[in-house]
């Protein structure tokens, strides 16, 4: 749909509004911290924002706090503090930055982070579980793990109507029903199922919008950079899930992307190579990392990150408001399982993207900090190379720790990769 809104207002609105929402969010967390208010610590894969927002609990995403320390180039200070406390250099940098943040009483480059009143997590990443155990020890708060069984073998997903699916779904539903009285006790508020319906409605609108935005980037030229712009969208998708601001943002974002698609407005003046990204961004040199690709005409059109770090919102699952708890359980199971699939069975996800997005190359970026995402990337790359004729580049670094980010070496390899792409294109043209 093309609107009559003036392009000067429309193009770039998603980035501007996203950045503003982000600032507002951190300002509000700072206010909560200063007033000694309550908060819920959650994670991006299965945040349970739907339940927590129903109880008016502000959500804190420690993963986002941590990555912001890297983007703002102070992560090393936090990492060093946690390592001094006893944490190994070989564990997740997000965890360590958060430990240091807690030791500093919540001081963060974007404001002040409130202490948790409750932590809610899923098993989508095992480090979530170990991480929450740290808060449990520090603050003696309720820690609720929502255990979400994943796919048991490649292409082995089960769906509604299957007995194994029902076993998983009823387990998730039982845990959600157990979470509610814990939230009631923490907040002193009664659970309001009608309020949950409203929240789920907002989440539905966001899910539909997120899926649509990803689909729209099949356009040529691509409408947004999955690595840079996509990270802004992700922040809103996580921080404002189930809220009116979040659903409005994605409604607007769809409008912007549809306008750009209709008018052939892309992210680069001349898009030469359409790339997929598998892994987690290199936050210590976030902008520079991206420029190493865009300088050579490459742009990231999709990524597994936009799938798993949105907790599987890419599936566009819509809750049935007539059966809110049952449907939330089903949606959570399907979406978080999908997030896990895009990490463990990334070869399937990338194969689909290759088919749908006119892909010239794949960038694999395994990182020291995250074994969940990184462990299978080399093997998946080998597998995909046998089945698909798409060049790929494998570069290792980290999302937090600049000690293992070798920018010069990275650039050499990226330049060589683009030379290979150019040569390949010349050969194809000449043959």
């Amino acid at each position, binding site marked *: 749909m093309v609107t009559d809104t003036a392009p000067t207002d429309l193009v770039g609105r998603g980035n501007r509004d996203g950045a503003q929402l982000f600032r507002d969010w951190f300002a509000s967390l700072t206010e909560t911290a200063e007033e000694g208010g309550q908060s819920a610590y959650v994670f991006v894969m299965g945040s349970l924002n739907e339940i927590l927002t129903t109880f008016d609990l502000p959500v804190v995403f420690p993963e986002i706090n941590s990555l912001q320390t890297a983007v703002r180039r102070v992560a090393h200070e936090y990492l060093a503090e946690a390592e001094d406390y*006893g*944490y190994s250099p070989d564990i997740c940098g997000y965890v360590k930055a958060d430990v240091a943040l807690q030791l500093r009483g919540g001081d963060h480059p974007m404001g002040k982070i409130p202490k948790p009143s409750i932590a809610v997590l899923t098993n989508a990443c095992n480090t979530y579980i170990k991480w929450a155990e740290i808060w449990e020890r520090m603050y003696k708060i309720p820690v609720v793990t929502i255990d979400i069984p994943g796919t048991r073998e490649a292409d082995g997903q089960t769906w509604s109507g299957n007995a194994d699916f029902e076993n998983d779904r009823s387990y998730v539903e039982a845990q959600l029903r157990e979470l509610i009285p814990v939230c009631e006790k923490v907040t002193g508020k009664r659970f309001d199922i009608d309020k949950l319906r409203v929240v789920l409605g907002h989440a539905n609108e966001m899910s539909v919008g997120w899926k649509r935005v990803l689909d729209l980037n099949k356009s040529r030229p691509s409408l947004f950079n999955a690595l840079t712009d996509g990270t802004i969208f992700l922040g809103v998708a996580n921080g404002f899930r189930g809220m009116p601001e979040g659903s409005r943002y994605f409604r607007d974002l769809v409008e912007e992307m549809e306008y750009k698609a209709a008018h052939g407005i892309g992210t680069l003046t001349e898009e030469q190579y359409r790339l997929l990204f598998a892994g987690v961004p290199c936050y210590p040199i976030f902008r520079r990392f991206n420029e190493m690709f865009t300088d050579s005409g490459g742009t990231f059109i999709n990524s597994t990150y936009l799938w798993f770090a949105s907790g599987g919102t890419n599936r566009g699952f819509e809750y049935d408001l007539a059966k809110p708890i049952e449907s939330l359980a089903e949606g959570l199971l399907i979406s978080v399982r999908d997030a896990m699939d895009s990490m463990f069975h990334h070869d399937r996800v990338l194969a689909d993207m290759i088919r749908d997005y006119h892909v010239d190359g794949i960038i694999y970026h395994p990182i020291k900090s995250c074994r969940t995402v990184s*462990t*299978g990337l080399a093997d998946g790359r080998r597998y995909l190379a046998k089945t698909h004729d798409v060049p790929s580049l494998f570069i290792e670094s980290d999302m937090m720790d600049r000690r293992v980010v070798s920018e010069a070496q990275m650039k050499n390899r990226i330049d060589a990769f683009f030379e290979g792409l150019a040569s390949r294109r010349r050969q194809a043209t000449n043959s």
Partner: protein
Amino acid sequence: MNNRVFNEWRDVSLDEAMGACLDLTEDHTFPTVARWRDLGGKVVGHFQVYFPEEIVHAAGMLPVKMRGGPVEPTRAEAHFGSYLCSIIKTALEGALSGAIKLDLFVSHPICDAARNLAAIWGRNFDHPCQILYLPQNPNSAHSATYLRGEYDRMRRVVEEVAGRRIEDDDLRRSIAVFNENRRLMRELYDIKRESPWLVRAEEAYALVAVGGMIPREEHNDLLQFVLPQLRARTTKEEDRIRVVFEGGFCEQPPLDMIRMLGRSCYVVDDDLLIGLRWILEDVPTEGDPLLNLARAYIDGSSYSPVQHDLRKPKEKMLLERVAAARADAVIVAAAKMCEPGLEEQVCYTYALDERDIPYFVTEFEENMTSFEHLELQVETFLENLLFA
């Protein structure tokens, strides 16, 4: 006809039997598994930590614990990036090299690295590669019901591979065999705690480890032969520090490292191969066998850094282990690049500090071959305690 796969300990002295167990533990060509296959048997490999082996046993197949080993992962290395523990590579190496042939591989989402394994194996082998989703929320009132359903799913997977049905009575018979096995391993650990001078650290380790490579009936025979003879040993008690070793729940330290520790102190308890000793009490043989197994996993089990249970804070569990073993000190170990193990080291050391319990922190890797430096450090630590 002799259908046994491990005969080397029979009709020999205790020391020779122990030697056979140590040899088998260090033999990463899996000779007993090969013999089982030569006899026409099928094999299910299960990755660390815990797996309900009774389900495989009830189908007449051999459950084998995939615990890696000190081998060079020359083939597996190309399938992984950096910053990863060794066991996930060496376990795959065993299969890629053909040292072990499986009919089914099962892994568990115990950690961020291992939960990738089923997908990696599935891309490289034709046999089924599955994840068994053990509950990470054992505090949910619904977790046993869920796990019963998950075990039933695994029963169907195993039935398909075995080509036969698994009846409840088959499971009950298997549970009885494993109950006896667990009782015997508890007895072995009683000896370690009560009179550690009667069994060397590496001997106790090997006696448990071979259980993951042979039919459990044979393992029961072996333990029934060995345990009375261990108690009858006339070795004298020495003035040594009593130590708990913590950190061997998944990747295993090399046998030489365990041997080295055993030379320096009495290792009176540990979490080595804890998955084989996970269930602490007999599983009922009456009623629904899968539900009984599920309840035992949730309510009657040990602990490890990769199971979250609000009832079992790890530092509390370690302190209980130390107290029960009347240990003087703890070796707080972790496999290199093992995230759960490294994270747990922090809470362990703070808890031990609070109680003034001495500890020694170290990291290990299954491919380590030189222990001089570590031995010097451990001996210095222990001497400080001995002569304090």
